[in-house]
């Protein structure tokens, strides 16, 4: 489950060269870095728009509802009892940092969807957090072994700042899609914009084609 690098891309061929700029970070990681991103190394920046909430595992609940046959919820213990899987690979934040070679553990969203049973007309998801945060993405991006609800990063329980006790993990899209403090995945037949998307960010957010903002 390693992320798949796309062919090396540099910026558009048009555009003025900045006098005196040659770039320092290029080449070190070659094809693994999406365009416009840099390798943050060992750091892991925190980006959050709201005050960091405290979600106690005793109160934790995750739901999958909307256009499903069987609206479902899991408590913390029930979530941990599901079959687990691992993502080993890179993550990319729209603020231009990428972090390589992370290891995440959690449950594949496929497992949750299998229990809930998406109806045929379900085509999009609106993901909710207990903080009130929302983000939207095509349902296809949550399926096929490419998305998780994760509670462990690099061998440690996910910290509160990084979305603990559990967050969505969709590493092939910019990381704002990987909602921290995830509480609910709502399936819809239409694309309904979430928090950052209403505030000008892209509805899909593929880092390899730089879908950062509305209009990209």
């Amino acid at each position, binding site marked *: 489950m390693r992320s798949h690098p796309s062919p090396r891309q540099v*910026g558009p061929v048009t555009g003025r060269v900045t*006098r005196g*700029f040659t770039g320092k970070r*290029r080449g070190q990681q070659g094809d693994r870095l999406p365009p416009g991103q*840099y390798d943050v190394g060992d750091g892991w920046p*925190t980006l959050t728009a*709201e005050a960091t*909430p405290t979600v106690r595992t005793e109160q934790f609940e995750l739901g999958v509802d909307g256009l499903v046959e069987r609206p479902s919820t899991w408590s913390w213990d029930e979530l941990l009892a599901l079959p687990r899987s691992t993502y080993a690979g890179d993550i990319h934040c729209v603020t231009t940092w990428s972090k390589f070679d992370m290891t995440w553990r959690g449950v594949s969203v496929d497992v949750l969807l299998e229990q809930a049973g998406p109806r045929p007309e379900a085509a999009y998801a609106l993901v909710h957090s207990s903080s009130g945060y929302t983000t939207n993405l095509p349902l296809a991006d949550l399926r096929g072994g490419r998305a998780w609800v994760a509670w462990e990063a690099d061998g440690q329980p996910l910290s509160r700042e990084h979305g603990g006790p559990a967050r969505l993990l969709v590493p092939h899209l910019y990381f704002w899609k990987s909602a921290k403090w995830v509480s609910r995945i709502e399936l819809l037949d239409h694309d309904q914009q979430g928090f950052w998307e209403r505030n000008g960010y892209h509805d899909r957010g593929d880092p390899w084609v730089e879908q950062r*903002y509305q209009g990209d």
Partner: protein
Amino acid sequence: MSAIDEVTARPTAWTEARVVEVDRPTADTVRLRLEPDERQRHRPGQHHLVRLRAPDGYTAQRSYSLASDPDDPLLELLVEKLPDGEVSEFLAEVLEVGDVLEVRGPLGRWFAWDTTTPALCLVGGTGVVPAVSMQRAALRLGRTDLLRVVAVGRAPGHLPYAEELAAAGASIAWTRANVDGRRAGAPTAEEVTPLLAGVDVAFVCGSARFASYAETLLQECGLPPDAIRVERFGPTG
């Protein structure tokens, strides 16, 4: 603060901007004033992207908050020179008046003040920049009564815009210097609580460590979490 959500998202595009002023407010920051080909009006608190391009097409981009008042035709950015910072080092050491940069914005309509909601800024270090834009707008509109600013710096001489902010009524808290009878230290609940009377939204901007402190402090002072908007930068462990 529903007004922001009522603004239609206007797609932004890359444009070019000429450097018209460069100076160094503190030892590790550089202030840039840029004249863009197209200047889309911003809301105080928003940011712009700056993109650098090498001869072979390699690019690097970063986002910087605007210090400009929305009426200012120029884009004013403050860049903190980071150790080994690919973009900040270039902007601080190589860039000269007359150079041309690619820019895009304004962006980020969440961390933005609508200039009508009573607000408090609790900002630290180079996180003061969006508060500068907000305060300049409040001064122009004659509504400084709507905006309270608490800026936190290490010691005099180390906080960009400190004089400008203080002259317009901001409280400055020095963490490592005793100044005018105030003991060195982070702002306290006793200092901040009176400033929150009538405030509907708080803007926190600074390092990850500063933002965590500020969020906790504001909640201790009785502000509900959903009234706090946060912009944090810099790596954490």
